[in-house]
Every structure is written in C-alpha cells, then in structure tokens.
C-alpha cells in the first residue's frame, strides 16, 4: 500500500480563544489533488502551517510521505513546494533572484521550469518585488512553490489576486502536476475553483474537519438560490406550481411578478416550468460557503469519508 502524502491523527493546534484546529483526521493520497475548503478563519492555514512545521501541534500527530511533521520537518520541506496564504517577499530582490536563492537552498540547478511557469502565468521575474502589485507578487509566490517540481505542492488560497485568465492557467498547471504524479493540497474558500481540479474535497469549519467528499457529489447535493422575475403579474395558483416541484423549498420572496426560492438536485423541472412564463430574468446562484455549511454540516464534525 502506498504511503499517504499526508496523514493526520487527531491533529490539534490550539492557540487563542476559539482558534486553531481540533482532532483533524485527514488522509491525502499520493498523486491526487485535494481541495481544502472552508470559510475564512476555519483553520485551513493553521492546518497547513502545522503540517509544514511552522507551528508545533498541541496534540495528535501527522506525517508527510511517512515522515513525522515535528521531527522530520526539514526533510519534508525538501519535497514540498509551499505557497503561504499571506506572505511578504524580500522587497529589494527580483523574482528571478528569489527563485535563484530558493533553488540554491534546495540544491536545484535547473531553473527551466521556473521560467516556463513564469511565462504561463505572466509573472514578472525581473522587477524588484516591492514594485509589484499584490497579484504579481502572488505569481512570484506560485513560481517559487512550483519551480522545483516537488512531490507535494501545498498552496494556501493560491488564486487570491489573480485575474481569471491567470487563474485558469494556474489550475492547468495543477492538473499537469497531477499527471506527473505530484500531489496537490490546496485550500480555498471558493467552491467552484476546487470543483474544477480537485479529486476530493475536505471541508473544515471552526477548526474541525466536517467531511471529506467527492466534489461532484458535493456540488450535486448543494442547493441553488433561484430568482424569477415575470414580465406580467402571475396568479398565485400558478406560482405555487413551482413550490410543488421536487427539491423546491425555502421560499424567500413571492409576489405577482417575483418569486425566489431554494432548490435541490435536478434543475431541469424548474427551468422547464419557468419556460412556460414570460420572464424578464432568471438567476440561479450557488449558496455561499457559510450558508452551505450551516445547511449541510452543522453539528456534523470529525467525520472522515473514505475515497
């Protein structure tokens, strides 16, 4: 059996009031892209920073490629590329100088992959980092995390500050890393981003891992906010047809020209019925993460679902 890329046993890091992570049990397999989803302050960064040895666990244990995160931290970081959630770069150095420094620290001499990544995400390696915008600094951070093609890539909210085209190029880099056999563990509070690339999704809330799911199942189960606006007033009896459809509940607004409700599962019956009316607009929106957590994961903690 292959050694997991990451395995935690009741990993706990307590600091401050109501902060930290509690009894996190998590397994990330080698070669998979694992999304770590949770709202801000849920414990994503604390988990990643504890795994990388920046913080010592209060209790519990964890291994990366079988090495203990406390005693083997330096060895672990040889095979890990890390992008912190918040970071500052050496402001007098250029991106190229930084990559060279990190390559020297790692004993890496071939920087061709750094140039390739920089080219694809349009990272400017030649300007001092103090002159770069937040998004451009983020790109330099991505290059420094990926350039040495580590076995494990750990990225904390990696797409913050990136424009959509660069985000897409970056997600493509992650897919390619997976094809090469690298493992990717990345956190986000944006569900669609994780859906696009992740094989599995771990959901963390208030420091507790509440579920590990397949992203397709997760999004399939997720409800949508549906808002319909009608060109002409519609009699109440006709509007009630929507409310009798399977999966429709939580009516938010109802009047002669507006109807807003929540719907689960298959959207086709809603769309077919809406097509029978003269509509001025139809909006189908995902819930926020916090809404989703309240709906599906409230009170359900510490569960790990096998892949």
């Amino acid at each position, binding site marked *: 059996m292959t050694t997991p890329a990451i395995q935690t046993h009741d990993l706990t890091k307590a600091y401050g009031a109501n902060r930290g992570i509690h009894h996190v049990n998590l397994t990330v397999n080698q070669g998979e892209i694992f999304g770590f989803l949770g709202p801000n302050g849920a414990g994503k960064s604390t988990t990643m920073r504890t795994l990388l040895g920046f913080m010592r666990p209060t209790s519990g244990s964890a291994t990366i490629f079988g090495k203990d995160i406390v005693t083997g931290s330096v060895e672990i970081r040889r095979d890990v590329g890390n992008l912190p959630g918040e970071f500052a770069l050496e402001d007098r150095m250029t991106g190229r100088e930084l990559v060279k420094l990190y390559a020297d620290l790692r004993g890496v001499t071939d920087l061709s992959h750094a140039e390739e990544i920089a080219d694809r995400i349009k990272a400017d390696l030649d300007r001092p980092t103090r002159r770069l915008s937040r998004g451009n600094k983020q790109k330099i951070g991505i290059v420094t995390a990926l350039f040495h*093609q580590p076995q494990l890539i750990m990225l904390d909210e990696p797409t913050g500050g990136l424009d959509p085209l660069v985000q897409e190029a970056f997600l493509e880099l992650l897919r390619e890393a997976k094809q090469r056999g690298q493992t990717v563990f990345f956190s986000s509070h944006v569900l669609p981003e994780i859906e696009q690339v992740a094989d599995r999704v771990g959901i963390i809330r208030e420091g507790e891992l509440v579920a590990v799911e397949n992203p397709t199942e997760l999004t399939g189960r997720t409800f949508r906010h549906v808002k319909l606006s009608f060109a002409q007033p519609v009699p109440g009896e006709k509007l009630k047809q929507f409310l009798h459809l399977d999966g429709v509940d939580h009516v938010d607004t109802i009047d002669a020209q507006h109807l807003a409700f929540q719907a689960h599962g298959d959207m086709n019956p809603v769309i077919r019925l809406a097509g029978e009316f003269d509509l001025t607009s139809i909006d189908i929106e995902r819930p926020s993460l916090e809404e989703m957590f309240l709906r599906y994961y409230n009170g359900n903690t510490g569960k790990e679902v096998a892949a």
Partner: protein
Amino acid sequence: MTSINTTATTYPGIQSARAPSTMLAFLRFLFSRYARTITFWGLGISAYTLLLIASFPAFEGTSALDVSQYPEGMREAFNLQSLDTIEPYLSSQVFSFLPLVLAFLPVTAFASAIVGAEERGSLDILFGNPLPRPIFVIATWLAVALLMLVMLGIVGLLSYGAAVVMDVDLELAKAMLAPLNLLPITMLFGGIALVLSAFVRQRAIAVGVPVGVMFLMYLLDIIGKISESFEPLRNISAFKAYGDALQDGMPWGGFILLLAIAIGLAALAIPVFQRRDIYT
C-alpha cells in the same frame, strides 16, 4: 501549450542541498542583504573618526584639549587623563561612546531577522524551503559578525591611513585594535536582541530591551568609576570588560569574555527559536 512529460518520475527537489551547501547559500544571501546597511554604518563611523584625526593637529597643544580643569569625577568617568596625544583624544571622542551607537546595528539586524520578519510576513515563504532553524540563526549571526569585522577593520585601516597623512602619531596596532574591540560588546547586546527575537512576538521588545540594558550598563559603569562605593557595580557592566583599548591597551580578557557571552547568547537563541511557533 507546453507539452507534459508524463513519464517523469524524478523530482529535482529530491536531490536537495544538504546542510553545508544550504548554509553557504543562505550566507551569500545574508551578506548581500546586510552589506549595504553595514557599509553605510562603516562610512559614517569612518567619516567621523577621520574628521577627528584630521582635526587633531589643529587642536594639539592648545587649551582646547586641556582637561586638567575638568571635575575629577568627570575625568574618572570618561577616562580623561590627558588629551595631548591622539589616543586619549580618539578614546574620549569616539571609542568611549561608540558602542552605544554601533550596538544598534546588530540589535536592529537580529530583531528584524526573526520577529521583525515574522511581523513582515516573510518567514513563511523562506521556511517553506528546507532551511533548518539552527542554520538560520547561525548564518544570521555569522553574517552580521563577519561583515562588522570587515567594516571595523576598514575603519581601523582608514584611521591609520589618515593618521599617517596628517602626521599624527598613531600606531597601526592601536588603530586596528580599537575598532576591533567594539565587536564583542556590540554583538553581546545584539545577542540579547537575537534571543528575544526568537522568543517574543513584537520587534519593539527585541530592540528596546537590549538597548535599555546597554544604557543601564553604561550608567552603572560611569557611576562605578565616579564613586568608589559604587565601584562593584561595574562588575555587572559589559563596559568594564570593554575597557579602553587605546589608552590602556587591548583588554584581551574582556574581549574574550564578551565574545564568549555573545556567542553563548546566539547559541541560546537556537533552541528558543526551534521551540517557537511562527505566526503570520
């Protein structure tokens, strides 16, 4: 679109540097980081010292350098035996108080190295690399100490050169040893900053405490020199060990003692930093 080599099974990251090469790489980075700051310090100290040496012949033999009318306590406190030669002149005008100024260099450098970097948010990305914390501490200490040593050596050479040019009678050995004597005492206060930097969460504390200790020690040394009854207080002041290299000869015993304490503090910073959580 770049093609993907799906058959790749090795990763450059695995063939990583081991401790010695990591140390050298990090030292190179630190030398470039600190070189500019230390050069500016060296320029300032050199300019001030050269100005005093250059102006000495103009004051030599005049009443401006007559300290016999100064209160005895003041002469004792600042070791003002006579200013009619360059040694006591430089000692009183430069080297008696220069530790109070120059110590800010290692103190601020070491305070910035850990807690300052943590406040800036630059530690996370650096320690994403396989950089052991002991190597981080040792290399940081070595970089500052070696660059200061070079800077102080240059100050000594320039001082000697200025003395030769201005026909001032200053021995090469004294010109070199007086600046060198600054290293252990300033690195001692820097060492306090390094330990605190590895422990506390605010850079201001890592700067403020060693600076406070330094001025307190200086005060104790002065009080102990003025009053015989307070003389034992000098034993807890680093300035007693610092002595007066120009007038009394190089205090090698004090030099070694202060250097040993400075190195001990740097060594203490290693386990302190290893137990520390790095926050963002």
